[in-house]
């Protein structure tokens, strides 16, 4: 469905970085590019959309070549049929919600599909409002609906939820997942939120310094693949209190703080601020450290 290989020199705050990425996605797959900001994840999306030109490489979607440096092919963004959801949503301030979607429909205007989208995203009652009068979460829904109005072959989400508060964020994560499954839309998302990556993606590609350092299912990449927990959460250690022979850990999961008991052995390399994974297995919770930078270590992964 999507085949991409690209190289581009980037001038970042940390000096020059060469973005060098190869990836593939099958139809209906949810793929996430994960990594610290400023390592070219967004540039990768922009190259696919045709907003930025790679120095070298090739981009093909569904058998159609969108970009090929050696053959001199560079299809303009207007012809690429992507649904790009921008970080700042980029809704058109002069158009109502309905008109924002309508302008993306192309010709002929399929009003039935438009109504369906409004229903599906639960923004029917907002259709006459102007974008500036909407809350962040509502704008996000409209942006997603507008991207879908284009009937894209590929959905590109650039940190779609980064500007929202915790609760709205979680609700919209479910929403994105629901929509993505509904349309079986091949989706490529950029994120640096671990929880988001876990919840949404089929596969994750970890990028560091412009290069791919790990790829696979989120659990494989971030967690220990030997464990098949019934419940699995990732969170951040807020506090560690020694308590006789065990430790009490306060862990932030989503927007909730949970307290769990850990043994001294489990606690060996865990510090405040670490990302951890909580796994409940046979009612016997295990705590283990999560590697935020999977590229740097782990001989067990190749």
């Amino acid at each position: 469905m999507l085949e991409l290989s690209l190289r581009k020199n980037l001038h970042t705050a940390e000096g020059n970085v060469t973005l060098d990425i190869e990836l593939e996605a099958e139809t209906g797959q949810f793929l996430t590019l994960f990594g610290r900001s400023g390592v070219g994840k967004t540039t990768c999306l922009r190259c696919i959309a045709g907003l930025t030109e790679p120095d070298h490489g090739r981009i093909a979607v569904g058998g159609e070549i969108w970009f090929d440096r050696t053959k001199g092919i560079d299809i303009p963004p207007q012809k690429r049929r992507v649904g790009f959801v921008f970080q700042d949503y980029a809704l058109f301030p002069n158009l109502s919600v309905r008109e924002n979607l309508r302008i993306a429909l192309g010709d002929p205007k399929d009003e039935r599909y438009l109504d369906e989208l409004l229903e599906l995203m639960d923004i029917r009652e907002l259709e006459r409002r102007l974008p500036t009068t909407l809350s962040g979460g509502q704008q996000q829904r409209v942006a997603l609906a507008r991207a879908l109005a284009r009937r894209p072959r590929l959905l590109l989400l650039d940190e779609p939820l980064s500007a929202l508060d915790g609760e709205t964020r979680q609700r919209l994560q479910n929403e994105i997942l629901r929509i993505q499954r509904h349309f079986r839309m091949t989706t490529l998302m950029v994120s640096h939120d671990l929880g988001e990556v876990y919840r949404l993606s089929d596969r994750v590609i970890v990028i560091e310094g412009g290069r791919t350092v790990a790829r696979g299912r989120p659990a494989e990449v971030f967690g220990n693949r030997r464990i098949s927990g019934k419940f699995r959460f990732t969170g951040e250690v807020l506090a560690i209190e020694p308590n006789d022979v065990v430790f009490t850990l306060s862990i932030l999961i989503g927007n909730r703080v949970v307290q769990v008991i850990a043994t001294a052995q489990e606690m060996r390399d865990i510090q405040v601020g670490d990302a951890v994974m909580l796994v409940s297995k046979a009612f016997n919770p295990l705590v283990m450290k999560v590697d935020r930078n999977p590229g740097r270590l782990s001989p067990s992964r190749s």
Partner: protein
Amino acid sequence: MAYDWQPLILTLKLATVTTAILFLIAVPLAYWLAFGRFRLKAAVEALVAMPLVLPPSVLGFYLLLAFSPKNAFGRFLDETFGLRLVFSFEGLVVASVVFSLPFMVHPVQSGFQNLPRSLTEAAYTLGLSRWKTLTRILLPNIKPSLLAGAVISFAHTIGEFGVVLMIGGSIPGVTRVASIAIYDEVESLNYDAANFYAFVLFALSFSILLAVFFINKRALGPH
């Protein structure tokens, strides 16, 4: 005594025609300067801004030379189009357009530049052509800038004196606009008539500028 309204009407006619032509020229020019990447861009920008600092007489003098039928360009216009731009209303329009160019281009250009880049990019990814992006998305979102540019160009044209004098002279009904009429009346000691023209121009300019500030305040106010 009955006042001669002709110079005032001529002034308004000149300002209206100039503003209309400026609008058509300045929007593409501002778009080009705002989004285009080309060498010599700084030179073009400096050229557009020149009327801000040049004495009107300099501009008027060179336009007079250029339009004169004795020179190549003026002769070309005369022979090809039968157009004599010296001491004619058409000449005044051309001179005014040049003279007021920065007053139209600058607000529109900064309007374009202040729009988030993502609006244009979103429009492109949604399949909108450049033209449709300009007319449906960009221009509607810089309405306050367009209005400010048009109004200020209009007001500025009303206030012209030096350029008009150089290139148009003072032919009643043709090139004798209100600002020139004031000068003529004062020269012939008709203070009463001069006061009439001066007062109307004063009131007109004040109301126009008041309108601009009012519009800007509303545009910057809460949504």
